[in-house]
């Protein structure tokens, strides 16, 4: 039995890797995507275009403007002299925000009157707006602290001392890169497994396969092996690159990582083979891949937290293997999670894997009739 399965697996590898086009498609894009998306996928803003409407012009106002300019997050793109210009620069997206410093800014400040600077933000992209606002808040708070120390004012009654665990500088790249690892592994595995049977059906080789002594289960295993091996190799390669080239910390244990990867690959392969068994044509298989891939990525907690979703969608994510794998990867990379602390992620993955593989096997036999 194993000899036949291995023969089939070897054949699968050969047909994936012999053709230069498909070889490239399997190896090239994941690496390119890792590179591109790692740089693209960050919530840390830099060069936020800001316009300054400084009606005061005094020393303190200059200092405040300088603080914005020197923070690295903002880039002064326009200096405004009229109120009416505010709408123009915001509407045209020339600047994301306009900082307005009133004419009595320095006078109020020196006379210990409460004073206010106004910030108008383009809310079209609410997330960017919220992040930009939080940067501005921090800058103003820093300015206040400095002002108070310089002028020997009374210290504020309370301060917040923040410590961020696992990611002290709150670098969103550390959060995103493990997610990209999971996405790329999923895409490769789906491409390798979900399209394989449909391809044989279209080429007419599937019948030839069925008249050999290979049993449906053996065909299934033979088709699963390349997905598993390629997924594991590519996953390892991407992780090595992420840790070495992008300096993402790796705190956990390699063994825990591979247990997680193995379980995740099983569940992804199960889904891929289910699509494969259902699809009569390549087009249907591709459609199936998309229908699974897109929600699986969006509802995995990759970019937006699952906790923010409404309850019924949160329940829906429970059947998404990506959800668990995201937590496992981030736990192992950043938190140094142990096997025990990830147990609750491992067993759902194992169950999804078993159910989908069994369903794929059943569909496979069923579709033959």
């Amino acid at each position, binding site marked *: 039995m194993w000899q036949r399965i291995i023969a089939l697996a070897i054949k699968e590898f050969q047909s994936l890797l012999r053709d230069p086009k498909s070889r490239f498609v399997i190896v090239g894009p994941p690496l390119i995507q890792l590179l591109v998306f790692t740089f693209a996928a960050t919530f840390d803003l830099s060069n936020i275009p800001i316009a300054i409407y400084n009606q005061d012009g005094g020393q303190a106002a200059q200092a405040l403007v300088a603080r914005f300019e020197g923070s690295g997050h903002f880039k002064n793109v326009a200096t405004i002299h009229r109120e009416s210009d505010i709408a123009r620069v915001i509407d045209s997206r020339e600047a994301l925000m306009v900082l307005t410093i009133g004419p009595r800014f320095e006078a109020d*400040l020196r006379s210990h009157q409460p004073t206010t600077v106004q910030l108008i933000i383009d809310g079209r992209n609410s997330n960017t707006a919220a992040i930009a*606002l939080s940067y501005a808040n921090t800058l103003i708070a820093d300015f206040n602290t400095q002002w108070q120390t310089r002028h020997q004012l009374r210290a504020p009654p309370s301060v917040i001392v923040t410590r961020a*665990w696992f990611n002290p500088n709150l670098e969103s790249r550390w959060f995103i890169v493990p997610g990209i690892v999971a996405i790329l592994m999923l*895409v490769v595995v789906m491409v390798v497994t979900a399209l394989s049977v449909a391809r044989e059906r279209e080429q007419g080789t599937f019948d030839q396969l069925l008249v050999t002594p290979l049993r449906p289960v053996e065909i299934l295993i033979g088709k699963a092996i390349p997905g598993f091996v390629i997924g594991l190799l590519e996953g390892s390669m991407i992780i090595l690159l992420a840790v070495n080239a992008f300096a993402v910390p790796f705190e956990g244990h390699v063994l825990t990582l591979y247990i997680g990867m193995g379980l995740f690959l099983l569940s992804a392969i199960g889904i891929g083979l289910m699509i494969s068994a259902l699809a009569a044509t390549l087009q249907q298989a591709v459609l199936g891949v998309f229908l699974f891939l897109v929600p699986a990525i969006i509802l995995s907690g990759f*970019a937006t937290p699952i906790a923010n979703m409404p309850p019924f969608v949160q329940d829906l994510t429970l059947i998404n293997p990506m959800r668990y794998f995201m937590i496992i990867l981030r736990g192992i990379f950043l938190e140094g999670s142990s096997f025990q602390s990830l147990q609750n992620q491992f067993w759902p993955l194992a169950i999804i894997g078993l159910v989908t593989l069994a369903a794929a096997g059943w569909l496979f036999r069923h579709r033959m009739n």
Partner: protein
Amino acid sequence: MSPPTPRRGSSWMRMGGLIRKESLQILRDPASIAIAFLLPVVLLLIFGYGVSLNAKHIPLAFVADAPDKESAALLASFNHSSYFSPRIAPNLATAERWLLNRQVDAIVHVPSDFSAQLHTASQSAPLQLIINGVDANQARLTQAYIQAGWQSWLAARTQAAGLEHSAAAAQPVALAARIWFNPELRSRDYLVPGLIAVIMTLIGALLTALVMAREWERGTLEALMVTPVHINELLIGKLVPYFVLGMGGMALSVAMAVWLFGVPFLGSWWLLVLTSALFLLTALGMGLFISIVARNQFVASLIAIITTFLPAFMLSGFIFDIGSMPGWLQNLTYLVSARYFIVILHTLFLAGDVASVLWPNTLALLAIALFFIAASRRKIRKSLE
């Protein structure tokens, strides 16, 4: 009967024939209909409801080493906010264990000498905040929310004490932020229009990515090519039916955005139709181009998967800010047509007809659409070589 020579007939007749053929094929193939209408509905529903960056009920551990009046007031200010669901931890060790097990996202720790320091003029009482920084973006937002809660507690406390003057001392400069277009920063208002662009990229490419490759593989193209049909007619015959289908899907998506998700629409409808049509042309044109270059359904589908959804999701500014990407990558995003359409949609939905935004982006869409159609035109020759 003697044969007329040469047998050509009008271009309209040939195009009409091709369009009718393609339409019939679409009608007979439930997959195309499903892609055009079912897919946007399902995806918009899932994402519209599922994707949100607005945190609510952030699980928070609250630890007071020596609970007293001050710490209770602070806790009350968190309890009032819908952003948090605070849990009181008996001690810091327990709270830290909760944080490790992902039961809470942050710990607010009131040290034992907090009250004492609060009343000492020369010192600031430190309030300790421990955050799980894995999700940096959420951590930052959580931090901002907690800061806001803390500030409102501080303001209330100052006010109660009648210390008007020291308010200025506590905070010499206050920031008054006014957010235009989306004052509550509802992430759905910005995500839903972006989603329309991402989904339509997917649908446009999926609809056309396989059509040409399919004709190659089934041998129907060879028979078509020896008829007097001109390449332009062939391309138009392919594009028109899928364009109509795609516009249907687009209309459905916009209707859902406005009526189901309540996203305001401030722009002009005619501009929406015009820009949507252009955008759809870029997506269809790209699919067609892939289809022509690949000639084989397997490769075409792989290229479509790789070049459509993920770039539209990651490089379009849909979630991740383009301005924060490195320069070389920003240049790359100019190739992603969803980038322009997302800006147009955000503006039309939330800001209205802002000519200075709409025109450059519309022209960019036009350029990309022309590029793909011209590239398809160049690549598809009436030849088997």
